[in-house]
């Protein structure tokens, strides 16, 4: 029977106290595991997305423009002239520029009017250097004419859309509190394609030809007179430049020449992330570390009380020939086992929580979260918890080490 076996038996002998201590360690570890996983994964997704488009141009604030035109969140920020889009596209630094017409929805999902060339767009992943194609068909084809729709993976899944289905669009997004002024019941869209899951905002959008948006709005007197092409409007323009180094000069040109807002999506998102999520994550992490300290205290108190209760057992072990070091070691092993079981349970609980939140974020925000990835920081945190647990065991182990064998054997 090893010291590990002896330590395990003593833990098992007071299973309720042991379980509660393990639970407290597990809760702290789970909280921080979930936070770190979600933080790292969302950050990774944002960083991947930054390569999709260098600049977004349109009216409104940079953040609102980004959320609206890149991530299909928030309300549309207004319109800009189609002629401005053509000027933006004609700039010598631009490889691709795609117009985006927003404002309509179906079952709460954004309808995105654009040009079919956007489906061919691919961007390179900074880390893996692989080309990423955010528009890949699971079924059907891309639209090649008006009133045809290509639906994102999440939309198809949620509404049950399949190729050949028809739907009416609604002006505005009632879910966001926008006024659903009128529907376009006199103009039906036909689903011609369903996209594969991409883990991006495309999963929860419906893509249609920009001309369909204009046609729908013309019927309601929103659009300008027919033939006045220069007055046709779009919500924003997504721009891909030859080099990331050209971003600032291009933005400068847009602001001075086109008189519109130009924003780097990644900057806006990281600013939002740092301003809102950053402090929230800091607070949650601080709570997690406080729980770690409380758990360490509970390990220490639990072991200390246990040592006091079994002074006679320790004295008997010493009388049987156990050295003071072996007694010290057995108690330290108890602290180690409790801590490691707490860490293991916490990792499982934390990853399960991250997985659940990942599913929610995937379906609501088009974010693919790999909840089973383990970062260096997580490993570092587990190491810290293990060390804290062992440090918590030192005082009780020292108490056990100093057992006064003769007097403890006399005490009944």
């Amino acid at each position, binding site marked *: 029977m090893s010291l590990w076996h002896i330590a395990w038996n003593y833990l098992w002998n007071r299973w309720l106290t042991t379980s509660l201590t393990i639970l407290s360690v597990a809760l702290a570890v789970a909280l921080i595991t979930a936070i770190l996983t979600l933080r790292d994964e969302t950050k990774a997704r944002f960083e991947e997305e930054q390569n999709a488009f260098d600049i977004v141009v349109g009216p409104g604030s940079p953040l609102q423009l980004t959320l609206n035109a890149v991530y299909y969140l928030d309300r549309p920020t207004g319109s800009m002239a189609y002629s401005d889009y053509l000027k933006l596209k004609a700039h010598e630094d631009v490889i691709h520029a795609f117009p985006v017409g927003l404002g309509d929805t179906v079952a709460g999902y954004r309808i995105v009017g654009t040009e079919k060339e956007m489906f061919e767009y691919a961007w390179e992943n900074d880390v893996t250097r692989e080309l990423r194609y955010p528009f890949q068909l699971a079924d059907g084809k891309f639209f090649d004419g008006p009133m045809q729709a290509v639906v994102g993976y999440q939309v198809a899944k949620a509404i049950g859309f399949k190729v050949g289905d028809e739907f009416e669009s609604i002006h505005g997004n009632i879910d966001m509190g926008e006024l659903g002024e009128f529907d376009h019941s006199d103009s039906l869209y036909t689903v011609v394609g369903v996209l594969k899951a991409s883990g991006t905002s495309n999963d929860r959008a419906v893509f249609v030809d920009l001309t369909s948006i204009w046609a729908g709005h013309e019927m309601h007197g929103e659009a300008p007179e027919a033939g006045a092409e220069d007055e046709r409007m779009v919500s924003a323009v997504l721009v891909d430049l030859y080099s990331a180094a050209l971003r600032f000069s291009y933005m400068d040109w847009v602001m001075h020449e086109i008189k519109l807002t130009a924003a780097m999506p990644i900057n806006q998102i990281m600013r939002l992330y740092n301003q809102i999520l950053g402090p929230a994550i800091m607070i949650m992490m601080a709570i997690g570390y406080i729980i770690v300290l409380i758990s360490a205290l509970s390990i220490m108190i639990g072991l200390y009380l246990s040592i006091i209760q079994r002074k006679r057992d320790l004295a008997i072990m010493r*009388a*049987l*020939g156990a050295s003071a070091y072996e007694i010290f070691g057995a108690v330290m092993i108890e602290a180690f086992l409790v801590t490691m079981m707490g860490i293991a349970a916490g990792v499982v609980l934390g990853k399960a929580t991250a997985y659940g939140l990942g599913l929610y974020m995937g379906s609501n925000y088009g974010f693919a979260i790999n909840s089973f990835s383990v970062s260096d920081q997580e490993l570092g945190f587990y190491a810290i918890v293990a060390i804290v647990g062992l440090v918590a065991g030192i005082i009780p182990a020292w108490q056990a080490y100093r057992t006064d*064998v*003769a007097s403890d*054997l*006399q005490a009944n």
Partner: protein
Amino acid sequence: MIELKDCRRKLGPGVEFYCKDFHAQPGAQIALWGPSGCGKSTMLNLISGLLTPDEGMVRIDNQEIQDFGDGKMDQFRGQNFGFIFQTFNLLKPFTALQNVMLGMQFSDTRPQKEWKPRSIELLDRVGLSHRIHSKPTTMSVGEQQRVAIARALANKQKIVVADEPTGSLDPKTAASVMDLLLEMCREEAVTMLMVTHDKSIADSLETHFDCSELVQEVSS
């Protein structure tokens, strides 16, 4: 052979233990007899190295142990002494078998493969072959004392020290435990020192050592 010579140990303000001379031959069965508080347990603790004398000599098997360091003393004690106490002898989280095996584990004098067969054999000899997987809390005090006897002999120790081993037992059980202890010690050729304040129990052993004058008042 056990020998104490001019052993002093301060017990408190103005009180000390003093044993001028004590000898025990190998295989002897000696009762350390005297009233409560007379110093007989202190003497047992000095012999077994649980206490060290302030002055004097304790010699066990031709080795003077009073100057042993803690580690050496722990090892020496595990190899040479078996202990039986009045009560709460066993470690609660462990079965009878594990309690007996623990004695061998800590002393580390026998190969690990012998621990289990030797423990089972001893538990069988004390009549507890049917309780080897029982935990102390499910056993009677008499049964626990039998397990303690098996554990005290598990390592083929040279000396068994028993501190009031029948003090918590009813007369019938006490007699049966006493008989078993003496018989087992004889069979294993072990020296036994038993502390008791009961004259009738002391009389059942072949030799007495009167401890009634071991504790003395001294001027501080």
